[in-house]
């Protein structure tokens, strides 16, 4: 999942550097953002070994 997100971010960065149009760039950014949010949600809700 992390690898996929970094690849999406890499594609987003290439389009951003090219000064792509909003309708091309924003969906890629949104996909990267949402995938990161899903991953964050997974790690926040998973059982962490908290041995305090």
């Amino acid at each position, binding site marked *: 999942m992390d690898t996929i997100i970094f690849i999406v971010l890499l594609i987003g960065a290439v389009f951003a*550097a090219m*000064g792509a149009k909003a309708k091309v760039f924003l969906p890629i950014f949104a996909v990267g953002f949402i995938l990161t949010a899903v991953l964050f949600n997974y790690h926040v809700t998973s059982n962490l*070994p908290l041995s305090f």
Partner: protein
Amino acid sequence: MPSTTTDAAVNDAAPEQAPEGTFWNKIGYWFPHILILAYCGTIAGAFSTQFIGNEFPCPLCMLQRMAMILASIGALWIIGQARKGTLTMSSYMMSYGLTILAAMFGMAMSGRQILLHILPGDPGYGGTVLGLHLYTWAFITFVVVLLYAALMMIFSKSTFPIAPKGNAAKWITFIVIGIFIFIIAANAVSVFFEEGLHWYLPDDPTRYELLNS
């Protein structure tokens, strides 16, 4: 009629400036470069901790790197459009809006990690730099980026970026973009080795899964 389509188009256009731009237009162009380089430096520092200090980045560390890259991509879009000459006031605002969104997201992630280790006696995760853990530094950088983007939006009329002419500026931009792309690609390769063929990183990684599967 309070406004027309033509008025909206005029409001969205780049503000009228001298072709070379003012000092603040140049600042508006080079500041996104500084943001990107600063985050490249931060992630390079995290890489040095990973490879020289032999510390494995945890899932929340990787998420914070993603948020840093997302915030930088917002700034990179400004540079790309300014160079292409297609930057409008609305897309300038939109770019910093994306940066703010990513910075807030990063604050949530680093804040979460700070809170995981906030109890007295908890040593925290990984080593420290100047007495603070990397995730605490990450939180500080996200706050700084948030303030920076907000200020650039407040003074957007005067800081509207105009790409300088000349090969030197072009090459500097090219090098900054190259470093940024390299850092993202290096993260993709590094996390692939750490994650192996698994869907998620373990909560407390202790080895490169790809090399040990």
